């Protein structure tokens, strides 16, 4: 069942087109990733979904609500963690959560949220005294304190150290396990691979690909790369039939090709009785897919 439907979303700032044509669908209970380079239009898209900005074209439905018209009801069911938003500098952590809890009809328990986000020890600190990562976690807590059905998290782990990042990922998974649908805007491939059920890749205001992380990798993974040092000289022309070959100075051979390249190369070598030593296979990652799908083709 879809919780968010976006069709042909269009938004411009003056003459600058920020979102050209974005359509996507987010299902109940999933973690949906929105990936794209800087300036791709991710924040603009989620801010329209969250009812903070008006679109210039297209339709958006969130839990059946129109974010432009049903703002009051939308705000009770959607939690937004904004990319760059602070609270009053001298506001305390617990104080901020208690205050924001009072804004919602059925809030979460602030103390439990503090605990889940590892902020209990800093509960009495003021916002201005927090480290960047702690501020970020407070920001996540504030987005969740209203017990939203949908949580939109824009660059949730930017500025966190690897440890804090993993902790935050666990929090996100726990929230999803409670049945909250999550939209996650991110730059980090590791984050997207680890957390997202499905991903929309946005480039220059358009969705260039949607699918599970594995599907996106498969789609972009035109090349597989195999590196090895042959146990004996390889007859000229043997491997060139099945892959594109590069010889490195240290005697290493790099074979690059499509899906069956690995088998083809290994079979050809075996027929000549040559063993590939130090064999390494480079699998395409989501990062390669990201680069492949968002890099403009050179003409």
């Amino acid at each position, binding site marked *: 069942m879809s919780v968010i439907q976006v069709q042909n979303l269009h938004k411009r700032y003056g003459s600058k087109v920020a979102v050209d044509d974005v359509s996507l669908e987010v299902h109940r209970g999933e973690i949906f990733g929105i990936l794209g380079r800087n300036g791709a239009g991710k924040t603009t898209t989620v801010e329209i979904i969250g009812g*903070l900005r008006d679109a210039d074209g297209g339709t958006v439905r969130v839990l059946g609500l129109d974010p432009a018209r049903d703002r009051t009801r939308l705000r009770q069911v959607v939690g937004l963690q*904004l990319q760059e938003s602070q609270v*009053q500098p001298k506001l305390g952590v617990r104080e901020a959560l208690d205050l924001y809890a009072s804004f*919602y*009809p*059925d809030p979460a328990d602030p103390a439990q949220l503090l605990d889940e986000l590892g902020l209990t020890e800093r509960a009495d600190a003021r916002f201005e005294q927090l480290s960047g990562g702690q501020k970020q976690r407070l920001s996540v807590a504030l987005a969740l304190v*209203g017990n939203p059905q949908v949580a939109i998290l824009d660059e949730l782990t930017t500025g966190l150290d690897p440890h804090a990042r993993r902790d935050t990922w666990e929090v996100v998974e726990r929230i999803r396990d409670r049945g909250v649908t999550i939209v996650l805007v991110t730059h980090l491939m590791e984050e997207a691979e680890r957390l997202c059920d499905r991903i929309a890749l946005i480039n220059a205001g358009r969705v260039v690909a949607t699918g599970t992380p594995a599907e996106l990798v498969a789609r972009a993974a035109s090349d597989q790369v195999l590196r090895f040092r042959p146990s004996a000289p390889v007859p000229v022309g043997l491997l060139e039939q099945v892959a594109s070959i590069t010889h490195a100075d240290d005697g290493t051979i790099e074979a690059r090709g499509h899906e069956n390249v690995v088998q083809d190369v290994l079979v050809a070598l075996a027929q000549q009785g040559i063993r590939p030593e130090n064999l390494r296979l480079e699998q395409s990652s989501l990062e390669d897919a990201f680069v492949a799908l968002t890099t403009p083709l050179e003409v």
Partner: protein
Amino acid sequence: MSTTTLTRTSGSGALSRLTAVEARLFLREPSGAFFAVLFPAVLLTVLGLVMPWADLPFNDQDPILKQINGITGYAPTVLALAVATVGLSAYPQTIAGYRGRGVLKRMSTTPVPPSRILVAQLAVNLVALLVAAVLMFAAGALVVGVAAPAEPLVLLGAFLLSVLSAFAVGSVIAALAPNAPAATAWGMSVYFVSLFFAGVWLPLPLMPDVIQTIAGYTPLGAASEAMAAAWYGQPFDVAPFLVMAAWTLVALPVSARFFRWS
């Protein structure tokens, strides 16, 4: 919990909570709290102690003004100064700072609209100014012989209306200034011009007629006039009240129209 209590939690409950929070934040900013609450009392007392005109008749040509001493004559001006300091300078800076930090934008993601922060700020500052006014009068009366206001209720009305009009103008500054430094610069400019027309630099009765006329049309000039008349016991004049009401009624919709939350 029943539905009715739940609904109330996100309505007036949120506003009173927000006001309590803004009040605590106000007190955590020691210099701001000092200026708003204690400065008027300190200023009036110090002037009363050092100024040679403090215990001379305020104006011996005037049958009413010769009954009061100079420092009593200056008290309404200090009140206007206090109102201007908070409404034209501190408040727009705070709001523009909140906007710059994304505080207002974050609030617009919640069911409680960010305009409630402005209301909370007004409430907190109004209370601070009332405390400041009482302290100013108490210190002035005890230390330097400031006379009690002749028409306390009219004075209170004039005071409340001057707070409203100053905050309405301050809201326009907060709405139009692109960022916090600009809000400070604009606020300070309007502030110092207002102080001139409120008679802080030179008492209004000593200024040329044309300046007095212009002053009567500025919010703080009108505030000063209305509070002075009530304090001194001069005949009631509705004009400055109308001027302040007009500023409020024009400035509020203008600021609402142009306000940006992010």
